[in-house]
């Protein structure tokens, strides 16, 4: 076999074993470091939580390609290799923003890999995750093969000294695919196994991929140091050991005929400005989007602040490690020369050439480090992606229900092995071909295809899932077509005509001159087509299409990760039937293990006793718990798988995520989403409004109850609802209902007790909500409920004026957990409205009853009053009758008594006057006696009649302003004869013109006649009688109105007078003071009494002043007729 073939076979010579042993110990050393780091982490004193370590882990970017390949590159294309490291330097500038954002997002969402990142951003799309995973694997596989190759060949180089002389013989002849030894004899195979082992040991010790692999990070950091040191060592050796320093080497090259052109670029197609540019672009993307870079930079990041240091530390590292590339390369050229295929190994061969054994071993270790780092990290992260994005979804689709937590970790380890073996496979098949050498850039070109999706995902909310899929598909396909196909051709798999004439002769499908684009180098051409189609497809499809809800939400989550938000949980959804916490724990344990599941829940509830906490949680808290559970599972299986799992699990429990009546929820969605939401909310608010209106518009409680129940049934699709009210007999009865079976209604009346829910609600006044009717502990109710087919129900107390009067119930036969918290709020309000309505109605009722009672009372009183008035009327009538009788009697009396007297006196007078003939003196005297007596009798009769009239109140007096003088004159005229008869002297004293008085002329006459008659009677012959009439001006005697003015009329005589003791009795009836005086003086005795009455009827008074034997003065007062102003009316 050829030398080349030989180099790969396991050979158990001492050197082989030594180097193998050193390699393994080195790896063990790394493992020890890893182990130690993990221990430190467990103790809380993390070794890795350090920006320098962080930066060093990022240096995993420098694989064996850096270690060996760069040197080889220099001999080929001069300084072009440096673009691979300048790009990242530029990118480092932007890390402060992009990287920080990616890290923040990934931490918050428990992102496990780059595929997970993309999948999560675009709505937790598992298809996208799978796509990225496949691309990644295809893209990275050759890269791994490259590492294996370099380890293998350097190993051989070190262990087969016979190969060393004439290193030129190690010409790389592009070979056909390698066929030869069985794999189990190949060094590379065992290297792969060893690497897989360490990969598993470093990266798959526990399941949660979102947890840090501190051990692995420490190991990577260590290997970064080692490789730097190793390279530096060789560099120093070559630069200052073999030559005189940089200047020396450079000037030598500058003066070298052939090699001097390596000092410039753009000297060939391979190092054109175009390719320079392209490579910079590619490396700028690669430092972030290569799976291993993403993993170390984002997933393994301990703190965001480390970015600040890493920003310059990594470029510094890159600078340092590449510092000696040029010297070594040029030195090698000067020393060894040879084709560039062996230039790769100058790092080894130069020391070897100068018998620097330890240095060469160090160099080898350095190269081994570089390669190991790349392989381990890549395989771990790719295995995670494989597991989470390809295998898990597959398992879920196939509904595998085994306890996965055990299997997952093993599957992960298996994945690592698989990935590495794939790399090995690639290596074995492709062999030494052209491809391998250039694999690095080809992988870079694959990695950059994720850039649009990621950068768009970070900054453009409108980037949709379909856009990402479209972009990635286009990019990847173009990449494959323009890079892999030609590589297959170069490797001899496909006919060369494809590249010259195009496939099937179609020139425009030529993979390296697609659509006739010439003048581009290989990489630029591919980059152009793949990236531009990628970007355009991404943009176009995103803009044309629309996002679904979860996509939108994730977009916001990602793009706005730095924006402060109060509540990222959209509340309008809920889990209708939330599982018990113990069940949740079990489900979680299946994926992440019991211990982790328990810890997650403990952390969530902040207590280890959380089993009963579920009942106290509201919808929002449940959502948070669900999200937390999903997150924790995502750590193990990736976010898209976790989402599927959680959704499926919930569905299996018979619950769905559903929209509920979010009446008072925050309008936290963007305007695009809220159209429908707004309508829903308007509908819900209108429900409340309608209910209030119903309550307000009707006083009939039955109507209000029915209206509200109808409302519940219509708007909320509630199956049964009822209103129970407490009757006077203490029983709670259904007064109105919808949807209940009659037997239920019949059996439903009962006294409120704690044994059933309506009773409990009534007695405690608390809202009762049972979301699963099977899980209640009141046996009475359970039977009733399940008999009806009720799955969930709510009861709310109906209050009226702080007193509970009934219960409003609603139930659902369709679902458990039908009623959301927000609905229950509404329900409570409706119950309150009902309470108000019923209370008001009852009040009105009371009022009406009260009114009725009042009416009855009033009617009774009215009847009583009417009876009374009838009585009164009767009495009145009787009185009137009596009165009439009285009047009739008096009239009769008056007439009957007077008539005969008329005749008696008249005829007697006739005879006296001699009208019937002459009579003698004797006869005249007798007749005069008769006349006198008759006259007296008539006077008496008159007096009696008068008095009777006065007593009966029948004496009429018409008071009017009259002239007193007139009456006086008339009266005096008639009395003069009497004065003359007794020869009494009468004198009249009065003022000139007396004012009018209020009086009755007839009665006044009577008064005057009476008084004057008395004066005449009781005064002797030739006596003096005077009458004075004047307006009284002094102090009014008592009994008169001091406001008025009076006429004082005094009749004075000098007759016999009145004894003092008799003055009092004077005005009494039938008083004549002296029994004998009546014979002497005549008189009825009624006169003064009548006079007094008459004066009083004039509203005046009468006084007497008398001395016995000297005479008497009778004074009476008459009110003057006064003008309205109080002036006295003057009589003209």
């Amino acid at each position: 076999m050829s030398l080349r073939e030989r180099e790969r076979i396991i050979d158990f010579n001492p050197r082989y074993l030594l180097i193998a042993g050193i390699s393994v110990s080195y790896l063990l050393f790394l493992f020890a470091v890893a182990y130690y780091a993990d221990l430190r982490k467990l103790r809380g004193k993390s070794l890795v939580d350090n920006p320098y370590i962080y930066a060093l882990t990022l240096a995993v970017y420098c694989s064996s390609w850096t270690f060996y390949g760069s040197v080889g590159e220099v001999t080929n294309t001069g300084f072009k290799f440096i673009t691979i490291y300048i790009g990242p330097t530029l990118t480092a500038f932007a890390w402060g923003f992009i990287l920080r954002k990616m890290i923040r997002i990934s931490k918050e969402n428990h992102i496990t890999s780059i595929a997970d990142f993309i999948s999560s951003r675009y709505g937790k799309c598992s298809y996208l995750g799978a796509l990225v995973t496949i691309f990644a694997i295809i893209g990275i596989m050759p890269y791994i093969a490259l590492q294996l190759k370099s380890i293998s060949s350097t190993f051989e180089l070190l262990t087969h000294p016979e190969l060393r002389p004439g290193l030129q013989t190690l010409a790389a002849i592009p070979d056909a695919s390698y066929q030869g030894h069985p794999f189990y004899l190949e060094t590379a195979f065992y290297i792969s196994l060893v690497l897989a082992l360490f990969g598993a040991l470093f990266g798959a010790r526990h399941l949660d991929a979102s947890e840090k692999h501190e051990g692995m990070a420490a190991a990577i950091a260590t290997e970064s140091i080692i490789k730097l040191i190793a390279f530096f060592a060789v560099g120093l050796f070559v630069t200052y050991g073999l030559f005189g320093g940089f200047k020396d080497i450079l000037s030598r090259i500058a003066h070298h005929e052939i090699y001097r052109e390596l000092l410039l670029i753009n000297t060939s197609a391979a190092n054109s400005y175009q390719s320079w540019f392209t490579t910079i672009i590619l490396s700028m993307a690669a430092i972030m989007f290569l799976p291993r870079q993403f993993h170390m930079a984002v997933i393994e990041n301990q703190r965001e602040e480390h970015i600040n240091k890493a920003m310059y530390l990594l470029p510094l590292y890159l600078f340092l490690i590449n510092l000696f590339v040029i010297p070594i390369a040029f030195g090698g050229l000067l020393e060894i020369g040879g084709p560039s295929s062996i230039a790769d190994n100058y790092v080894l061969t130069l020391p070897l050439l100068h018998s620097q054994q330890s240095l060469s071993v160090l160099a080898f270790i350095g190269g081994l480090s570089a390669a190991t780092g790349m392989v381990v990290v890549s395989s771990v992260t790719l295995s995670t992606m494989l597991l989470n994005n390809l295998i898990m979804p597959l398992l879920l689709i196939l509904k595998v229900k085994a306890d996965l937590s055990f299997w997952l970790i093993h599957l992960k380890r298996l994945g690592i092995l698989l990935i590495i073996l794939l790399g090995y496979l690639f290596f074995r098949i492709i062999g030494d071909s052209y491809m391998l050498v250039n694999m690095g850039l080809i992988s870079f070109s694959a990695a950059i295809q994720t850039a649009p999706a990621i950068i768009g995902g970070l900054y453009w909310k409108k980037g949709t899932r379909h856009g990402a899929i479209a972009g990635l598909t286009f990019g990847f396909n173009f990449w494959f077509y323009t890079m892999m196909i030609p590589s297959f051709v170069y490797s001899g798999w496909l006919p060369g005509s494809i590249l010259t004439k195009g496939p099937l002769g179609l020139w425009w499908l030529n993979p390296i001159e697609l659509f006739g684009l010439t003048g581009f180098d290989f990489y630029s051409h591919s980059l152009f087509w793949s990236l531009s189609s990628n970007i355009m497809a991404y943009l176009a499809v995103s803009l044309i299409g629309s996002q679904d809800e979860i996509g939108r939400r994730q977009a916001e989550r990602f793009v706005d990760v730095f924006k402060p938000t109060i509540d990222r949980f959209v509340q309008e959804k809920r889990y209708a039937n939330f599982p018990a916490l113990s069940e949740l724990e079990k489900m979680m344990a299946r994926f992440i293990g019991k211990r982790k599941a328990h810890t997650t829940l403990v952390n969530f509830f902040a207590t280890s006793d959380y089993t009963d906490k579920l009942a106290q949680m509201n919808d929002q808290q449940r959502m948070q718990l669900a999200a937390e559970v999903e997150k924790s599972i995502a750590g193990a299986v990736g976010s898209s798988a976790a989402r599927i799992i959680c959704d499926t699990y919930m569905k299996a429990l018979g619950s769905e995520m559903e929209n509920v009546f979010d009446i008072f929820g925050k309008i936290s969605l963007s305007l695009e989403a809220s159209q429908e939401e707004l309508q829903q909310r308007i509908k819900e608010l209108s429900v409340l409004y309608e209910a209030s209106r119903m309550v307000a518009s009707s006083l009939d409680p039955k109507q209000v109850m029915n209206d509200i129940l109808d409302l519940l049934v219509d708007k909320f699709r509630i199956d049964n609802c009822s209103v129970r009210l407490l009757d006077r007999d203490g029983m709670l009865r259904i007064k109105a209902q919808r949807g209940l079976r009659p037997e239920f209604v019949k059996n439903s009346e009962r006294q409120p007790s704690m044994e059933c829910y309506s009773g409990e609600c009534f007695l405690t006044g608390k809202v009762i909500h049972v979301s699963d009717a099977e899980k209640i502990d009141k046996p009475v109710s359970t039977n009733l409920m399940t008999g009806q087919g009720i799955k969930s129900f709510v009861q709310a107390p109906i209050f009226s004026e702080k007193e509970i009067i009934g219960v409003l119930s609603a139930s659902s036969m369709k679902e458990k957990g039908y009623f959301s918290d927000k609905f229950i709020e509404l329900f409570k309000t409706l119950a309150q409205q009902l309470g108000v309505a019923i209370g008001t109605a009852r009040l009105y009722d009371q009022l009406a009853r009260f009114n009725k009672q009042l009416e009855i009372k009033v009617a009774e009183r009215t009847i009583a009053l009417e009876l009374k008035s009838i009585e009164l009327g009767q009495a009145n009538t009787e009185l009137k009758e009596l009165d009439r009788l009285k009047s009739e009697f008096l009239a009769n009396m008056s007439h009957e008594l007077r008539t005969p007297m008329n005749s008696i006196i008249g005829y007697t007078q006739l005879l006296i006057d001699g009208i019937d003939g002459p009579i003698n003196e004797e006869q005249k005297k007798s007749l005069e006696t008769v006349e006198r007596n008759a006259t007296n009798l008539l006077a008496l009769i008159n007096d009696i009649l008068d008095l009777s009239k006065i007593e009966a109140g029948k004496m009429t007096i018409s008071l009017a302003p009259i002239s007193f003088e007139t009456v006086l004159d008339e009266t005096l005229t008639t009395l003069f004869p009497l004065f003359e008869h007794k020869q009494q002297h009468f004198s009249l004293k009065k003022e000139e013109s007396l004012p009018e008085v209020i009086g009755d002329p007839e009665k006044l006459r009577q008064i005057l006649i009476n008084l004057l008659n008395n004066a005449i009677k009781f005064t002797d012959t030739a006596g003096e009688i005077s009458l004075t009439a004047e307006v009284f001006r002094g102090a009014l005697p008592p009994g008169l109105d001091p406001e008025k003015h009076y006429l004082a009329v005094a009749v004075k005589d000098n007759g016999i007078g009145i004894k003092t003791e008799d003055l009092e009795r004077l005005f009494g009836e039938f008083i004549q003071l002296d029994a004998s005086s009546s014979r002497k003086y005549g008189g009825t005795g009624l006169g003064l009494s009548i006079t007094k009455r008459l004066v009083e009827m004039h509203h005046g008074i009468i006084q007497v002043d008398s001395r016995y034997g000297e005479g008497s003065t009778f004074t009476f007062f008459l009110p003057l007729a006064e003008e309205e102003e109080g002036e006295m009316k003057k009589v003209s």
Partner: protein
Amino acid sequence: MDEKNRPLILVIEDNDDNRRLVIKVLGSRDYEVVGVTDGRQALARLDSIRPDLILMDINLPDMDGYEVTRQIRRQKDFAQLPIVALTAHAMVGDEEKSLAAGCNAYITKPINVRTFPQTIAAILKEHRS
């Protein structure tokens, strides 16, 4: 008094004693007096005679004095004829009633035989002027 013009007085009084008294008293004073006992007679008599004054007792049987007065007053000839009512002054408003019925004056019973003729003369004199 003029012999050729002795005033004619019609007296309507149902009480015989009273009527004869009035006739005697007035007769002695040179009046022509005719007496009737009730209203109907009076009205009938008035067809043939034309008194200068009528003395009407209010308390008449059958048609009372007021009514008689009213009826007399209806006849054009006797519209201005002085009618003096004789009232017993018993009831309320007797005087007013008589005046309202159409009487010119009233005298209360019992009649003062001595003054009564002068009252008649005064009324007649007043009426003539």
